[in-house]
């Protein structure tokens, strides 16, 4: 009985961590599907979003839900501006130019965050901090559960957005065939900036959900590297894929920490990533694509 409880605990913790990885991976995938750019600074956007939420909630004393929503909107606007003013200029350059650009941006974000908010960890009060819930005799932290529930809700919202609203459908079109979308009168560049906005908003949400579990600090963005494993498992192609990938990585990590000797946990996500790339590079869900010559 105790073992089962332990395992369930690991699964919940893993799923919660995995949801965060999945949310960051979701940000990657949204942008990649549309523009083939990968935002290596996605984790750092999450960090900035978390800090903005901290300022709004802890410094300006806005209520949690209001502050959180505002932080998401601000971060989304930031993502839009980032695309409109910076990323749009590198269209046409090879892919690793964009990789380097976003890496450079990551440096700048970290430095700006350090200057504005300092290099210590901060936290703000959430309705879920230090609260637990009793599920069938098992005590689970509400913070972890909030992550899982929040992620599921977000996915439902995004699914409805992309499939039912006009903007969402336009986004799908623009990401599949830019030229055809232009011909259909879809303002492709605006749409791409909107996708960046959504991606940034999702990252901010991840930061907010994560804050009760692990505090917000300047180096939080390095979680982004683990999110790559999630995105790769998901095949870099789909929303549910990224999340499932994230949850898999999260749970495997927890079990690795439990079963393997100390210090191996950190290698887990990288090992899973490499394994996936060698065995089935297209991920669990994506299709292979080839070029017509």
């Amino acid at each position: 009985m105790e073992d089962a409880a332990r395992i369930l605990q690991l699964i919940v913790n893993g799923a919660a961590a995995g949801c965060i990885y999945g949310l960051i991976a979701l940000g990657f995938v949204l942008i990649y599907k549309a523009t083939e750019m990968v935002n290596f600074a996605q984790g750092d956007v999450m960090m900035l979003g978390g800090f903005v939420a901290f300022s709004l909630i802890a410094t300006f004393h806005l209520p949690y839900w209001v502050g959180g929503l505002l932080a998401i909107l601000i971060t989304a606007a930031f993502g839009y501006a980032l695309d409109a003013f910076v990323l749009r200029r590198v269209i046409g350059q090879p892919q690793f130019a964009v990789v380097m650009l976003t890496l450079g941006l990551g440096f700048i974000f970290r430095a700006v965050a350090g200057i504005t908010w300092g290099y210590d960890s901060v936290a703000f009060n959430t309705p879920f901090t230090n609260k637990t819930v009793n599920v069938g005799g098992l005590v689970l932290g509400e913070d972890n559960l909030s992550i899982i529930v929040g992620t599921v809700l977000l996915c439902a919202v995004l699914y409805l957005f992309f499939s039912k609203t006009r903007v969402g459908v336009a986004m799908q079109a623009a990401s599949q065939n830019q030229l055809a979308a232009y011909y259909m009168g879809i303002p492709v560049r605006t749409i791409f900036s909107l996708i960046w906005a959504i991606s940034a908003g999702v990252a901010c949400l991840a930061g907010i959900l994560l804050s009760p579990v692990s505090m917000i600090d300047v180096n939080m963005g390095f979680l982004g590297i683990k999110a790559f494993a999630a995105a790769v498992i998901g095949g870099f192609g789909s929303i549910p894929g990224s999340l499932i990938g994230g949850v898999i990585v999260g749970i495997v990590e927890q079990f690795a920490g439990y079963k393997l000797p100390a210090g191996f946990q950190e290698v887990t996500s990288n090992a899973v990533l490499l394994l996936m790339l060698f065995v089935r590079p297209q991920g669990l869900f994506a299709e292979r694509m080839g070029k017509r010559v």
Partner: protein
Amino acid sequence: MRYLFRTHYQQDITLFRHNGDRFWYGLLVLLVLVAPAILGEFYIGELGAVFIFAIAGVGLMLLVGYTGLISLGHAAFLGIGAYVNAVLLAKGVPFLVTLPLAGLSTALCGAAIGRPTLRMSGLYLAIATLAFGSIVGTVFQKWTAVTGGFDGFAVPTPTIFGYPIEGATGIYYVSLLVLVFVLWVSANLLRSPTGRAMVAIRDSEVSAQSMGIHLARYKTLVFAVSAGMTGLAGGLFAHYVRYLAPDAFDVLLSVQFVTIVFVGGLGSLRGAILGAMFVRLLPQLIAIVRDDLPFGIGRLPGLEPSLFGLVLVFVILFQPGGLNGMWLKMKQWFRAFPFKRQTSFRRQKSYARSERLR
């Protein structure tokens, strides 16, 4: 304005195109050789580090700039070279053997990581090498029996035929020698069929295959050569720092290497050296002007990485040719003076080219 009148195909194969080039490069070599007599120990030490980073830069340039394969894990190869060199030296193996061995063993590791990543395109390769670099970094930390882990590893002083290589000057000359060797080897490779195969792989894999280029073989080869050169740089790096710590070879160092290649200018050997100069000398420059900056900017923590990021962003947005591109533009400006036109240096508008389908 010099016009190159060619009468023999040899002139297109030689390393230096005309006597003017030979003169200036000769002068440069002379200056570099006598520098230790003119500059102080500190500057010589820094130049030695520039040479070491340039060696790694050339290795990475062959991979990224010429073959189009991106690696975000090259710090791992630097570390492997450093540790192999240091550990073997500690066991009494002579330096003239340990350094080439460091290069060779790293080359084998490069081939080993190159093989499974063959079918991966840009993005996936970047992620895979990132993961690889992380794992190797962890191995350095955990394999304490060999590397000493976080206790560090003291690097013994190398000796060549009984003469100890001590101090900044010794490292300076050895690194210079290795750099010249690596440059010569790279230039040879680039003017041979293999060099052209590398460019073909970068520009169009399908077409390269139809020309008879065996993708798997060449990609693995370039990975091996690139890793080997970085391994040599690693061996020298061990002597530069004299005390190896496993967390020195992290993802931030890999990013520094890729920055060398990028800021230097993709697709040129000169770019690797210019990029190395930039990456190594920028922190020194900041340290010098730090106190003079207005508004107390100089006292801000995180100034260095933010400037790093800013320069990277600036180069990619406005000068994608990098430092090499700027150098060529300057030369062209002087050559065409006073006939420079406004549109001489304007970039062509280009459209997104899908990398999913290469």
